[in-house]
C-alpha cells in the first residue's frame, strides 16, 4: 500500500476525529458548531480519498454547506448570542460513550471478520477487482464499460429500483415543510409586511395602534379565530 495515501488517510482521520472530539467537549456552543463543519469536511475528504467524488461533493454541499449553516443559524436565533459557558457533558457521559463504542464495534467487527484480508485495498485494487469480476461475468473477455457506482448509476438506482422509498421520503419532507410554514405563518397572517419605525409613528399619530402584549410583541387581532 502506498505510503503517501496512508499518510494522507491518517492525517484526514486525525482531523476528522479531533474535530469530532472538539464538537462534544468545547464550552462555546458556536465553536462546537464550527468544529462540526470541520468534521464534515474531513469526512468529505475521506470520501474523496476513496475516489467517491460525487459522495464527497454531496457531503460538502448538504452537510458542511447547508445543515451546519442551519444549525448555526438556529443557535444564533434562539440562544443568547454569546453562547459561552454551556456545559456540554452530561454527568453520565460514559453511558453514551459505551453505547457509541458498542455501536461502532457492532459495525466494525463483522466487517473485519468478513473482509479482514482485504482491509488495505486501495481504489485501484478495487478497480482491478471490478474489472476481474466484470470479465468473468462477460465470459473471459474484458467488457468495454466497467460498472463503477458513479453519478449515473446512483441516479438510475434512485429513479428505478428505489423509486418508492425516494418518493416516500420526498413526500415526508414536503409534509414537514408545509407543517413548518403553517406553524411559522399563523402568527403573521394579518401582518403583510414589516413596518419601518417612521410608518409605525405615522400610524400612532393617526390613532391606529397595534395591540401589543407585555413584552412588546405584536398580537394579531384575529389570532383567536385562527386557532
Amino acid at each position, binding site marked *: *500500500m*502506498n505510503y*503517501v*495515501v496512508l499518510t494522507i488517510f491518517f492525517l484526514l482521520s486525525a482531523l476528522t476525529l479531533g474535530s469530532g472530539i472538539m464538537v462534544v467537549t468545547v464550552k462555546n456552543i*458556536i*465553536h462546537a458548531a*464550527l468544529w462540526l*463543519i470541520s468534521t464534515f469536511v474531513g469526512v468529505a475528504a475521506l470520501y474523496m480519498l476513496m475516489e467517491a*467524488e*460525487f459522495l464527497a*461533493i*454531496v457531503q*460538502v*454541499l448538504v452537510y*458542511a*454547506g*447547508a445543515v*451546519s*449553516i*442551519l444549525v*448555526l*443559524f438556529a443557535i*444564533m436565533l434562539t440562544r443568547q*448570542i454569546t453562547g459561552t459557558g454551556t456545559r456540554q457533558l452530561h454527568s453520565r457521559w460514559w453511558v453514551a460513550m459505551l453505547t457509541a463504542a458498542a455501536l461502532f464495534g457492532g459495525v466494525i467487527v463483522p466487517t473485519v471478520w468478513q473482509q479482514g484480508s482485504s482491509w488495505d485495498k*486501495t*481504489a*485501484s485494487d478495487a*478497480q482491478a477487482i471490478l474489472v476481474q469480476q466484470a470479465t468473468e461475468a462477460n465470459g473471459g473477455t474484458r467488457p468495454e464499460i466497467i460498472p463503477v457506482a*458513479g*453519478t449515473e448509476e446512483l441516479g438510475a438506482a434512485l429513479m428505478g429500483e428505489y423509486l418508492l422509498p425516494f418518493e416516500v421520503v420526498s413526500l415526508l419532507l414536503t409534509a414537514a415543510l408545509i407543517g413548518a410554514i403553517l406553524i411559522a405563518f399563523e402568527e403573521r397572517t*394579518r*401582518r*403583510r*409586511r*414589516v*413596518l419601518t419605525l417612521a*410608518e409605525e409613528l*405615522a*400610524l400612532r399619530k*393617526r390613532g*391606529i395602534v397595534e395591540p401589543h402584549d407585555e413584552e412588546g410583541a405584536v398580537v394579531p387581532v384575529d389570532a383567536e379565530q385562527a386557532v
Partner: protein
Amino acid sequence: MTYWPVIAVDAWIGLVLVSIIKVTLILVGGSLGMMFLTWYERRAIAYMQDRRGPNRVGPQGLLQPVSEAIKTMTKEDITPLDADRVVHFLAPVVMLGATVLAFAVIPWGNLFPSSLRVGVLFIFAVTGLHTVGMLMAGWGSNNKFALLGGMRGVAQMVSYEIPLLMALLPIILLSGSLSLTDIVTRQGDWYGFGWYVFSPVGLTAFITFFIAALAEGERTPFDIPEADSEIVAGYLTEYGGMKFAVFYLSNYMTNLALCFIMASLFLGGGNGPGVTALGTVLGGLLSLVYFFIKALALFFLMVLIRGTVPRLRVDQLMGFAWKFLLPIVLVNVFSTAIWVAITRWGPQAQIFTDWFGEPASDNYLRYGVAIVVTLIINLLAVYAVMRINRRQPSDLTEEEIALGLAG
C-alpha cells in the same frame, strides 16, 4: 482518470510539479482578474454617473488597484478587544478558501484546469462554504451590525442557492453531464454557435441564474448583507487593513467565478466561429479571447445594474426568491424535459418520429416544434407568476391604506 497509487515516483513528482504550476497560474490569474475588475467597475460606474473615476495611477488609472493593495498591506491590523480572536481571524480565510477552491474546475476558454466528473456540483458545494465565513465574520466580530449583516447574508445565500441550483438543472439535462468539460465541448455545434442560451429553456435558465448569481455574489440590488446605509458595512464592519482586502478579494473573485461559470454554461465558454478550424494552439488562444469577451460582457451587465437599480428591502428579497424565481425555474425544468424529449427521443417515443422524422442535429422541424412548445410553456409560466404575485386592492391591510401605501 489516474490512479496515483500505481504511479512511479518520478511520474508522481511530475504530477505535483504540474499541479503547482496550474495552481500558481490560477491564483495569479484570479488575483489579477480581481484587481482588473475593481478598476473596471469603478471606471464604468464613474462614466455612468458622469464622473471620471480613478485615472491618475498608471495609464488610465490601471495601476490604481496596485497602489490600493500596498495601502491595505501597510495598514495596522486591528482586532476588537472583545472579539473572538480565532474566529475573527479565520473568517476571511474561509471566505477566500471557498472562492479559490471553485477556480480548480472553472475552465478558461477551452483550457480546463482539472476535469472533475462532477465539476458543476463541486463549484456550488465549495462556494456554499462562503456562508460559513460570513457567519464567522458576523459572530466573531462581537458587533451588532456585523451580526445583523452576517444573518442577512446567510438568509440571502440560503434562499438564492435554491433557484441558482435549480436554474442549472436544465443545462445538466441538455448536456447529460455534470462535467464542465463536457458541457463546454457540447456547445461547439453549429459552427461554434450551439450555445445553450439560444434555446428558450436555456434563455430562461440563463436569466434566472443571472439574477440568483447577483444575489450569491452580493451585487446590487442584492447587496443587503453590507448595506452601508442601514447596517454600517454588515459583517465587514470590524475588519480593516489586509483582512478587509481579503474579503474584497474573495468577493470580487466570486463575481469573476460567477461570470466565468455563466459564460461556460450558457454562452458556450470558449466556443465561437473559427475555434475548431484554427487548430489546437491558435484556436485555443482564440477561445480565450472569446471567453474573456463573454465574461467581461456579463460583468459589465452587473456593473450596469449596480449603476441603475436601487437596493431591495429584506422582505422583498425573500419574496422575490420564493414567489417569483423558484416557480419559474421549476417550470423551466419541466419544459427542458419536453425539449429533450422532442429533440432527442427516437425509439423511446415512436410517435415523435412518426410526426417529425428521425432525431438529428439537422432535423429543423423537431427543433422548431420544441422551440414553439417550450417558449409557450415558459411565457405562460412567467405570466401566471406575475399575475399571482400582483397584489389585489383587497389584500391591503388597513394600516397600509392609512399610510397611503396602496400603490
